[in-house]
């Protein structure tokens, strides 16, 4: 790790101003569960670390227009335990609980979770090329090890996936991200915070340097009370997703009134399945319709040599999760141990 100056911010203006003075080298420190890991690997080398965990963003409260406003410094475990989240947005609680470990969830913040970097092995190894780490150096994953990488929206420059579970739920829920930058406050919708790699895979999000996430807001969304998160991973716990799905469904009299679907582990962004949602809305809530919707979404999939399995897996998870939501069955959120 390179030496760095450490400061602790007590309000957002101070943090943003501090960053502005060292834009080349400054980074915000949340829970550090990914940043400290990346600093130790040499992937991140801040010269100024601004601790933002003690900013007054540690509360979950009702938003002015209904919905929930979640402070960016709220710890993942506290958010998962919040009674309103558990009751009104179970998909978010389930996604958080499916991620990492109890210890990491106690430390990781909401803002940091959104901004965590890919776990692609090449990205994490500074002795190998990676366009995300060093623009123009190449992407060995395209021809190399990409079994766990993207099937949707990737480019020849990067096939990484976004690792967050929480962000998949937030994307399905249409959360908005409140950002404080040099030009003041602005709101970034989800999807829309994370970006596809294109020819700039070094940029994970649309945020500018120095932008500070202050809160995430969940819209009031009645159908979210019937929502769930399903994640398939190689280990039964404490592993990143191969594929995950966050879904909410409002079905009545055999018809889909509304739905929300997002996929994890398939793209550089938490992937909102808009084509599938479009296909479903107003149509029958049947397994056949669910299959057709999943196929509509996955028609765009371009699997790599070794990750074609993600297409049928994503399809299966979409169909099952919707069917379970429709039927009110299979509360086995983890896919866990029988």
């Amino acid at each position, binding site marked *: *790790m*390179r*030496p760095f100056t450490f400061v602790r911010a007590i309000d957002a203006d101070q943090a943003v101003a501090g960053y502005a003075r060292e834009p080349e080298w400054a980074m915000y420190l949340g829970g550090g569960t990914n940043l400290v890991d990346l600093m*130790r690997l*040499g992937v991140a080398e801040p010269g100024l670390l601004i601790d933002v965990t003690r900013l007054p963003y540690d509360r979950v409260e009702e938003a002015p227009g209904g919905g929930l406003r979640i402070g960016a410094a709220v710890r993942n475990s506290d958010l998962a335990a919040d009674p309103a989240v558990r009751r009104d947005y179970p998909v978010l609680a389930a996604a958080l609980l499916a991620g990492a470990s109890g210890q990491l969830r106690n430390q990781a913040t909401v803002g940091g979770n959104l901004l965590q970097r890919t*776990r692609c*092995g090449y990205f*994490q190894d*500074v*002795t*190998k090329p990676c366009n995300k780490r060093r623009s123009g150096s190449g992407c*060995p994953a395209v*021809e*190399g*090890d990409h*079994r766990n990488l993207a099937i949707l929206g990737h480019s020849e420059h990067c096939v990484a996936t976004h690792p967050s579970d929480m962000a998949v739920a937030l994307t399905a829920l249409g959360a908005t991200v409140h950002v404080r930058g040099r030009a003041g406050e602005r709101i970034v919708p989800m999807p829309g915070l994370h970006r596809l790699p294109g020819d700039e895979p070094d940029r994970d999000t649309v945020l500018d340097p120095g932008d500070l996430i202050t809160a995430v807001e969940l819209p009031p969304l009645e159908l979210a009370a019937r929502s769930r998160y399903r994640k*398939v991973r*190689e*280990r*039964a*716990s*404490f*592993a*990143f997703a*191969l594929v995950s799905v966050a879904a909410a469904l409002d079905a009545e009299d055999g018809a889909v009134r509304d739905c929300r679907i997002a996929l994890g582990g398939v793209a550089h962004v938490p992937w909102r399945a808009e084509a599938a949602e479009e296909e479903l809305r107003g149509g029958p809530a049947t*397994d056949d319709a669910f*299959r057709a919707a999943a196929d509509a979404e996955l028609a765009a999939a371009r699997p790599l040599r*070794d*990750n*074609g*399995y*993600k297409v*049928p*897996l994503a399809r*299966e*998870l979409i*169909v*099952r999760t919707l069917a379970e939501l429709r039927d009110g069955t299979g509360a086995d959120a983890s*896919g*866990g*141990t*029988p």
Partner: protein
Amino acid sequence: MTTDIERVTGTALDRVEGRDKVTGLARYAYEYPADDIAYVVPVPAAIARGTITGIDPGDALAVPGVLTVLSFRNAPPLAGNDPELRIFSSDRVSYRGQMVAAVVADTLEAAAEAARLVHVGYDAEPHDVLLRPDHPEAYVPEKVNPSFPAVSEQGDVEAALGDAAVTVDTTYTTPAYHNNAMEPHATLAVWSGDRLTAYDSNQGSSTARDMLAAAFGLEPGQVRVVSPHVGGGFGSKGTPRPQIVLAALAARAVGRPAKVALTRQHMFAVTGYRTPSIQRVRLGADASGRMTALAHEVEEQTSTLKEFAEQTAVPSRMMYAAPNRLTTHRVVALDVATPSWMRAPGECPGMYALESAMDELAVACGLDPIELRVRNEPEEDPESGLPWSSRNVVACLREGAAWFGWAGRDPAPGVRRDGRWLVGTGVAASTYPARRRPSEATARATADGRFTVRIAAADIGTGSRTALTQIAADALGVPPERVDVRIGDSALPTASLAGGSMGTASWGSAVAMACVRLRERLDGAGGEVPEDGIEARYDTADDIKADAAYARHAFGAQFAEVRVDPGTGEIRVPRLLGVFAAGRIINAKTARSQFIGGMTMGLAMALLEESVPDAEFGGFLNHDLAQYHVPANADVANIDARWIEEDDPHLNPMGSKGIGEIGIVGTAAAIGNAVHHATGVRFRDLPIRPDRVLDRAPQIGGRNL
């Protein structure tokens, strides 16, 4: 011998060092105090093969607190016969991650930063790190580990296969696996003049001492290796690893104590791993399932530095009767780190293939897989013709079947469904040799009524300290509370290392006999302990030379129930039962833990673990614990181990067989066989990952979507 007293042997004595371990007071190598310790961080090679053209330590040396940068440019030459340990001896790079330099600094932070600032120039050469079928460079080694012939032949296998009523001809592959003990390899080295003390994480302090002495041209008496607590090894700390040499080099270079703990990432490069294997197994049987031919042909890898040829087909030489038999090994020297020991080397991967093929043969014969094994039970060791000292694999299979509820099992594959899960069960046999090696021990009685046993044994988590306490207590005829067992220090009487499941048998023999001698002396002294104590010593070398000729092996049977979700590729193992026949069990509590621990590693071998080689850059891609999946708590459900008491007089004073390794043998086959029973699809490449299940999902019966 000690067979007549009220015994603590066999009871479930708590680990004698348990309190130290749960309070955090048990010290591991990196944790010893010393004045003014310098921190060492090695620099791994960034190419897989080639020559170092330059080492520029300037930026590293400019980091405040950095004391020196070691490399082949300035490091003194080391002696010894292990090229993996002669670090910094030349400008050659033989594998990615090989140590090419190291930084020594006042703080860990400075050393870690500076290690990244050592600029190493390379002249890279084309490399090859991939084991593949019929590799053009494959050759038959002179011997396989530790000293078996690489090829064995009995009868005429090809003719017998041609004549057989039923045949199986299949190829299985296993990937590279890493031991991944929780405690990284670590050493604190302290020089005092020309005497060296190394606090080190290893599986045998006597062995490590001898290696260190050889490397530095010292007499063994000038070196002391201290290792009372070791955070797991599973083979990877049996052969000393480069960190012990590095710490000693660094400490001498800076004239201060110096310590190094390898990063988890670097452990994947320099601490050994189990070779990947490609195994073709051909079985021929008559219509009743009696085998007429058994061929087991193995291809595996070694390095360009030295030959390490795992004895993968060796268990096929003794496991079943078959008049015609062929076993072969071929190795390929790739641009990789040298493979090394990992729990049950040979038996673990070899029995995976053999026991999977036996299941396929049972299906082909329409026989219950237990019955097939019973029909092919050999009366004596098929290769040597030696009698078994004891062999109870059939009892393990039969008893296990009863405990597991095997009776009435429908052999039809792919037909049992419980919700989203396809359910199946599988069985496999286990075996592991029961050997012992010469060791010395002393036993001392003191006037306070206590006894101290000394031996340079190792407790890497096996429970050996506790087992030796029980063995000594029984031999002395005193309660275990009055016995102090001192181990993990090369200053103690020389002992063999913890490996090959030989530890407790080897050390226990010496301890038991030293205690018997001490008792005789005490009896001779009228039971009175003199003021300055009384001591006896025993060396088992002559006893072991005189051991009668028997085929000595432990045996077992493993039963698995699996659930496979063909839609998601997920596999769960709700039940795993191992039944073992391993002589007398010395400690019922720690033995169960050993068996279960081995089975857990076997479960992970089947479903989770693999080290993925990086074809483009060399080394292993998934070199951390987020990417290399050792099992988590949630992966292990109902797992149990039981045993059949054996009274085998041909082993050692305790009548025990080693138990550290047999637990992993057969587990992966039992799980793979159960996956076949669940799905009707045979997965012959480990691990059986979700993507592999999904890729073959169209072949799986009963898929509902």
